[in-house]
């Protein structure tokens, strides 16, 4: 039992969906101040092919180094599966598709599919990300290359 009423739970789901929407938009528009503000200080990121990033500040440093100005990304998330451990702790799993282009040449470097496994906490009245792990089901590298 989460100690939430039905309406409280539905409203919290909407807030978490909005948090997720902002994260995808902040990433794809490279709005790093917004991106950082959506994550708790102790947020942990785990992406296949990268070390675990143990804080939001480390995450931002790495995400900027990987993407800022040199990559154009598309992150589309679908069909949220959001459940509550308590009134201030939740988990979410989202279907996802992403495209990563080289910004200069426009080449499609990666077309991927998978699931985001995330946790959220309500801190000072606001839901924030506390962890994110991307588990990929398929990565197509340079799928349009002709060489």
């Amino acid at each position, binding site marked *: 039992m989460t100690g939430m009423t039905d309406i409280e739970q539905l409203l919290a789901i909407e807030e978490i969906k909005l948090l997720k929407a902002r994260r995808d938009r902040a990433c794809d*528009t490279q709005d790093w101040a917004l991106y950082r503000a959506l994550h708790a200080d102790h947020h942990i990121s785990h992406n296949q092919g990268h070390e675990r990033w143990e804080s939001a500040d480390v995450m931002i440093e790495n995400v900027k180094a990987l993407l800022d100005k040199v990559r154009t990304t*598309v992150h589309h998330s679908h069909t949220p599966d959001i459940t509550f451990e308590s009134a201030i702790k939740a988990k979410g799993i989202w279907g996802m598709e992403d495209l990563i*282009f080289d910004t200069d040449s426009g080449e499609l470097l990666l077309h991927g599919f998978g699931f985001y496994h995330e946790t959220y906490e309500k801190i000072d009245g606001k839901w924030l990300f506390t962890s994110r792990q991307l588990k990929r089901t398929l990565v197509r590298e340079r799928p349009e290359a002709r060489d």
Partner: protein
Amino acid sequence: MSDLEPLSGAARLLAIEEICRLKARRDRACDTKDWVLYEALHAPDHVSENGDYGRWTSAAEMMVNVRKSMENLVTLHHSHTPEIEFDSPIHARGIWAMEGMSFWQQDGQNHWFQAFGHYFETYDKRGYRWLFTSRALKYYHSRRSPGAIFPPKITA
């Protein structure tokens, strides 16, 4: 959700659902070319701003242009992950991630255009119904088949 929110509880949830349904209908009306439905989703004073086609300052002007510009295109509009917020119980704003594709024939050849971006929209509750009052589409990435002219010229 604080008591200062202009809409709270079940009323807020229902309004979000109604706006999401409005959006779903707009994307479907566009891709199925159901222009009667499309127009009915917009307030008469709706303003559209679209990088491909410029600015239209009424729903009537939008309809004239949308019909013409879409006539020879097969389109796909997929909208994702809404950010709906309320300025009052009858005024709302939304941002949606989007992918758009268009397919058409140009000099007997198949061509395509693909874009990724965000819709920035406003909605009003007029009477009992939520309607679009503005829409701006901002792409952050687009690409097209070699030699494609997009948008194809609108012929009078």
